[in-house]
């Protein structure tokens, strides 16, 4: 080992250590922010390691520098701009987009090496392992890219699931695509430089990514993004084999495995198995048959009536959902709860594990609006407290407060943990209309005698509520 190699080795070791500490720290509230920075520093070290190694051995020609700087500037600045501009409400889509680009990067590396085999000559040094890693990198990278883009488009509402995709036919299509990719992969493994097999694999796995992601319903989407995130780690590890970088293999494997665990944690939160998320079809798919039907006995009321009830309450629980995020109403909500608190009313927030479009979505949103962290209660903590609650304010949440999940064994939601809001004395549901929730399933809560609907956009209703509460003088006398 010469000096350069030792230096590069030391840098890599430090980078791996920092990355591992970073991932570990990200799972604790107290250390999360520092951990994120630590991981970023580790990535910087890793880049320096590669550059030092190349400078000390083969050198880097000027032309290579130009392309490096070009790629860095364009990609980096676009990334920074996107990260700065995107509103907090569309975090899930953003993560999906970033993730897809990571997959694309691995795919391109593998393609480059596959097209120009002479360029590779990594530690894998040609042969079977390199062929396999190219195949894995192309396959996983391609799936990650298309899958993430579809996930993003669906969350953005740019794309909805075509009906045939919800039928059983999609399984046949996906199996056909998987077989097509497999054949191409085997062909590629047998004769390394087979251009048509390579493109067949790219297209087959790309379409497979679309086919698998497209039918998945919104509530399950976070799980899919987390899984795709894990895939992009696998793709990175495979790319590590292709170019012969152990650091890349370690980091990719860590992210892949950690992503898998996170996916499992998310599934547990929804009481769903990974298999049923991926192959059981969207909850919405079966809704037409199960638990459908028209609403009867709906009571609706105005913001004024709602304000009167709130004024008389002692304990209020707010249940935020995706509707709140869409309406960007978190700040207005905070104003309303400030008035209530000033009036001596106890306000807490019930956070369902999968409220919104991503676990933790509501926490991020409410934190943005300065809601104290300790007022956010997790489902297990808040559920026993509902019977002692005067008013529950459901803001743009639907499936997570559907009592069907506990009572109706035929319901597709059955078994999913829900918030028992119906136990409270009065429930107000703020909702734009009577349309079904993301799962497309009827919500029995809306028909209960102690439930009143307040129709309207969450922000507008909360604004009206604020005016009414102020007119009533709530919070003035303290």
């Amino acid at each position, binding site marked *: 080992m010469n000096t350069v190699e030792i230096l590069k080795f030391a840098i890599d070791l430090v980078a791996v250590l920092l990355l591992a500490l970073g991932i570990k720290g990200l799972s604790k509230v107290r250390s999360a922010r520092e951990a994120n920075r630590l991981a*970023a520093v580790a990535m910087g070290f890793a880049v320096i390691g590669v550059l030092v190694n190349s400078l000390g051995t083969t050198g880097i020609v000027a032309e*290579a520098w130009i392309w490096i700087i070009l790629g860095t500037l364009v990609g980096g600045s676009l990334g920074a701009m996107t990260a700065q501009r995107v509103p907090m409400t569309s975090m899930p889509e953003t993560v999906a987009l970033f993730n897809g680009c990571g997959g*694309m990067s691995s795919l391109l590396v593998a393609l480059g090496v596959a097209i120009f085999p002479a360029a590779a000559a990594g530690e894998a040094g040609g042969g079977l392992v390199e062929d396999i890693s190219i195949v894995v990198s192309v396959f996983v990278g391609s799936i990650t890219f298309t899958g993430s883009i579809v996930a993003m488009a669906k969350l953005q509402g740019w794309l909805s699931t075509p009906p045939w995709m919800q039928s059983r036919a999609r399984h046949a299509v996906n199996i056909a695509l998987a077989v097509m990719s497999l054949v191409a992969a085997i062909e590629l493994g047998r004769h390394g430089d087979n251009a048509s097999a390579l493109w067949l694999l790219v297209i087959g796995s790309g379409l497979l990514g679309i086919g698998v992601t497209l039918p998945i319903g919104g509530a399950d989407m976070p799980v899919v993004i987390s899984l795709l995130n894990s895939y992009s780690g696998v793709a990175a590890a495979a790319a*590590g084999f292709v170019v012969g970088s152990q650091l890349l293999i370690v*980091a990719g*494997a860590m992210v892949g495995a950690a992503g898998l665990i996170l996916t499992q944690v998310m599934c547990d939160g929804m009481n769903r198995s990974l298999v049923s998320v991926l192959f059981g079809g969207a909850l919405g798919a079966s809704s037409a048959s199960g638990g459908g039907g028209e609403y009867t006995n709906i009571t609706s009321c105005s913001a004024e009536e709602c304000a009167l009830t709130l004024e008389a309450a002692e304990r209020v629980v707010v249940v935020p959902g995706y509707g709140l995020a869409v309406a960007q109403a978190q700040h207005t909500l905070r104003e309303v709860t400030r008035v209530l608190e000033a009036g001596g009313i106890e306000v807490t927030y019930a956070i369902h594990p999968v409220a919104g479009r991503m676990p933790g979505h509501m926490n*991020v949103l409410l934190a943005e609006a300065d809601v*104290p*962290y300790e007022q956010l209660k*997790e489902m297990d903590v808040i559920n026993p407290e509902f019977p002692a609650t005067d008013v529950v304010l459901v803001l743009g949440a639907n499936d997570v407060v559907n009592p069907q999940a506990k009572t109706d064994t035929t319901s597709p939601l059955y078994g999913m943990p829900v918030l028992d809001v119906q136990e409270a004395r009065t429930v107000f549901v703020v909702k734009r209309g009577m349309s079904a929730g993301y799962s497309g399933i009827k919500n029995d809560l809306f028909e209960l005698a102690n439930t009143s609907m307040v129709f309207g956009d969450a922000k507008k209703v909360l604004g009206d509520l604020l005016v009414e509460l102020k007119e009533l003088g709530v919070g003035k006398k303290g």
Partner: protein
Amino acid sequence: MSIPTEALWVLLLGSLLGLELIGKVPPTLHTPLMSGANAISGITMLAALTLIIKAGADGNAALLAIGSVSLGFALFNVIGGFLVTDRMLAMFSRKSARRKDTNS
């Protein structure tokens, strides 16, 4: 044909490490953790970098371009991922900082 046994060991141990790193994660941190891990998966930029350097040495213009695009995608992932995670986490830490102020 050579089998890179070391690299396979690295793969195995890295996977095991990843499985152990995350135990119980509070729901609050699911999104930031996912986002942070996602940024780290952009580590494939190292592969892109290696590819460009090699292509430069070989004078392979097409591969230089492929590598550069790949590097761009990876950096979009890395820079964007870390910044967005930091933005999310900043909200939590700002909160606790303020709480400390009011308590004291």
